[in-house]
């Protein structure tokens, strides 16, 4: 089983996996050989990719980059390198990488580059951002941003938030939410409750001003209610 939200790292140095996970604040699925990553591709859905192109003496991550780009056209793909003047870096960027990050990894640089690439790719993909008060939700990368802080959602959590924001404060019936998130697959209320919990937890970590409200017999809604103002009680 994979975690709900994760990045993906291909590097023969296990330290890099640990450092990227700690710096990004989300787990990083670790691969040390391109073949292992290639086999796992169909099951994966990362929020960002970090690829070392100089692996073993005769193994390179370079050949894999076009496949990764084809699989995830909108996912930031950064080359991890200890030598930014490496000739292979140009090849990696031409093959579909968006950027590079130098070793040893600096967290501020890493986060800035990932954020910049996400913003750039979102712009290229058209209107992918939804706004609720000072909260910005990027559909493409399933990221929530509030005053420079950022959290990521699972695909289902992102879909739930998207539905609620699009409803502009109106309550959305649970049955409609389940249909939108899971299509025609029969899902119990527990699954939806788990996603509501995930969304509330992510929001709570960012701000106390945005609330997901459950309205008995009606459905769910999302509201921006700045602290200090009274929350409207629905009946």
């Amino acid at each position, binding site marked *: 089983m994979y975690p709900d939200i994760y990045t993906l790292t291909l590097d*023969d*140095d*296990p*330290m*890099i996996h*640990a*450092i990227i996970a*700690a*710096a990004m*604040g989300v787990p990083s699925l670790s691969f040390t050989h391109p073949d292992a990553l290639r086999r796992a591709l169909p099951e994966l859905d990362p929020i960002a990719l970090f690829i070392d192109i*100089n692996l*073993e*003496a005769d193994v390179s991550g370079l050949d894999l980059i076009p496949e990764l780009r084809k699989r995830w056209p909108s996912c930031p793909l950064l080359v991890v390198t*200890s030598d930014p003047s490496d000739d292979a870096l140009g090849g990696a960027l031409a093959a579909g990488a968006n950027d590079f990050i130098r*070793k*040893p*990894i600096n*967290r501020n640089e890493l986060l800035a580059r990932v954020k910049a690439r996400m913003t750039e790719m979102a712009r290229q993909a058209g209107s992918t951002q939804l706004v609720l008060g000072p909260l910005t939700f990027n559909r493409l990368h399933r990221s929530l941003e509030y005053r420079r802080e950022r959290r990521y959602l699972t695909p289902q959590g992102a879909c739930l938030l998207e539905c609620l924001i699009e409803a502009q404060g109106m309550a959305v019936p649970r049955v409609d939410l389940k249909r939108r998130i899971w299509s025609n697959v029969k899902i119990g209320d527990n699954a939806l409750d788990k996603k509501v919990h995930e969304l509330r937890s992510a929001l709570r970590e960012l701000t106390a001003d945005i609330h997901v409200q459950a309205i008995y017999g009606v459905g769910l809604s999302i509201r921006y209610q700045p602290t200090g103002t009274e929350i409207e009680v629905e009946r």
Partner: protein
Amino acid sequence: MNYPWPIFDPSVLEELDSYTKAHGEEPLSIELKQIFFKRCPEIYQRLKSGAQVQSIQEITFAAHTLKSSAANIGLTRLAKQCEKLEDACRARHDMTNMLQLIEELEEMVGASFEALHTYPSPDFNTAALH
């Protein structure tokens, strides 16, 4: 021999520890040190094996890998020495020069291990490592 770089720059691990401490997790340096203690002798062995068979490709790869690992955790002198060796390989220096650099590395690996073991002692004295 005098080197212009310190054996160990603890600020690198302090910075990395701040990533996990912010989330109330175990310091990242614990895991990184474990990885290094396990991995460094393996890479160094590979370096020596490469030197024995005079394989420039193998020496370059091992030097590159050790450079990166050392730099990750603030082992500045070791990283710089590996970089010197990697550059010598790429410039096709003669093997005698490379063997000399590899010999110097052996001593440096020992000193790097000692320095890492002291982190993060409360009475950690960085001056002693210069």
